[in-house]
């Protein structure tokens, strides 16, 4: 079954240049791809290439300007509530109420997904333990926790609602190498145990190669390649994914400049 089906998806933002001038800037210029159930697809892209915009569109946090997106057959823009039940997300910033504890943050947000007190009081310590969070600190305010620990709570928040599609937007950016490995290990485990489908946006080429079945390259709002790591290396005739990434985006850059002339 197809988990995610995106077709010619477009999104523009209005940018203000000074008080009177406005300009429409494309963030996604008609991208198409599918993700199969249980698959992990990584999207690589430089800053501003449109990764977070794609994640936000799939999370029903942005409205699109054209094309379509379906999650497990539900139209993301036509029936967002059906999609919301299936999706959760972890992004660069952990984003919590800083003075509240991790348990409090997780409890109220799980309530929005219909989980009762009975369920959360049992599941929250369980899930915190699984993400490697020191469970005895679950009553402490979020602001007292390190970034790595906050990120683990963010993972716990996403998993608590048992999403079938997990959107990960740079989940390990800014973590120390050890926390990074722990989080990556956990992502792998989630896939195996929960049979979740994952869209992982990252700058980290090793992470993409280690976790994903297929890798896409997003460049200036266009998905210029999508395939297994080996396919990409073969296509760009390089030994490493890094080589493929630079070949792909570098070539596109040259193309852009030629067009402008």
């Amino acid at each position: 079954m197809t988990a995610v089906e995106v077709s010619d998806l477009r999104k523009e933002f209005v940018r203000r240049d000074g008080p009177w001038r406005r300009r429409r800037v494309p963030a996604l210029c008609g991208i198409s791809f599918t993700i199969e159930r249980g698959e992990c697809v990584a999207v690589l892209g430089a800053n501003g290439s449109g990764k977070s915009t794609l994640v936000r569109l799939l999370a029903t946090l942005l409205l699109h300007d054209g094309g379509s997106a379906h999650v497990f057959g539900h139209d993301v823009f036509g029936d967002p509530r059906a999609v919301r039940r299936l999706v959760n997300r972890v992004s660069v910033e952990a984003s919590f109420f800083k003075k509240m504890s991790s348990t409090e943050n997780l409890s109220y947000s799980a309530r929005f997904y219909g989980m009762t007190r009975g369920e959360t009081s049992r599941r929250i310590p369980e899930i915190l333990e699984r993400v490697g969070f020191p469970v005895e600190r679950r009553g402490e305010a979020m602001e007292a926790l390190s970034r790595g620990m906050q990120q683990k709570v963010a993972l716990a928040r996403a998993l608590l609602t048992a999403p079938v599609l997990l959107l990960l937007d740079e989940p390990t950016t800014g973590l120390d190498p050890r926390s990074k490995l722990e989080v990556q290990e956990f992502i792998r485990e989630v896939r195996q145990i929960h049979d979740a489908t994952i869209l992982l946006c990252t700058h980290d080429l090793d992470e993409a190669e280690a976790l994903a079945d297929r890798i896409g390259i997003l460049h200036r709002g266009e998905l210029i390649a999508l395939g297994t790591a080996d396919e990409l290396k073969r296509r760009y005739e390089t030994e490493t994914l890094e080589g493929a990434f630079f070949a792909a985006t570098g070539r596109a850059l040259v193309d852009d400049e030629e067009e402008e002339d």
Partner: protein
Amino acid sequence: MRGAAATLRGELIGLAGVVERNVYLVRRYIWWDIAFFVWTVANTLTIVYIAKGIEAAGGQIDVERTTTILLIGAVIWAYLGIIFEILTETVAWERWEGTIEYTFMAPLARPVHLAGMGIFSVAYGVVRAVLLFGIVAALFDLQLPEANFWSAVVVLAIASISFVGIGMMTAVLPLISPEKGVQLGFIAQGVLLVVSGVYYPVDVLPGWMQALAVISPATYALDGIRAAILDGAGVGAVWHDIWPLIIIGAVAVPLGLEVFRRGERHAKRHGKLKRSG
């Protein structure tokens, strides 16, 4: 049928979650709440002393009655401030903490979400209003022999529906203008109370303000509560204040929801929920 029951159950749990979140926040920021309450008491005193001041300056007034009239105005001012503040935080505070995207991507119907905020704001606002009234009334040793507190609470409860509806409209402002939206909420509060006769009868206002007073729920709330506390008017006797409140509430809540829905659409179209990452 079963599907509908399950959906309803899910929404009620979500509503409880909204209330729960606010309870956690009050608990975590309790010292701020206490400090803010002290400020409100001080502020109320500055207004309520005006009655004694007029007498001391040789004015002929019924000090006890005037003090009570001013106190009711000040309490309603504080109460409305709390309702608007909490509803505006639906967006503003969550935006600041960055949780807004997580809340807005949850499968919680927006009307239920806003209802949760409304219920909490009313419950919390009533506790604060009752404390404020009690403390200041005790300080001034107000006897209030006639007072019918029951009908005062009924009027306040019905007025609260309209207040929450208007609060939803102000809550949307931080979605449209992240930086200044919250301040616009204060403008709404101020304008609403000025035209509604917060410390004076509406008759003293210019004609155009009186016209606004007719559609302001605070006008009827102030009038009904004053009648109940000063003259002991029962629920039947303040019916002429209650029915306009019911009508205004029946318009304000759907209007508030619609305004919020549009604001949310606007924010999602232009990427204003949050911009980072």
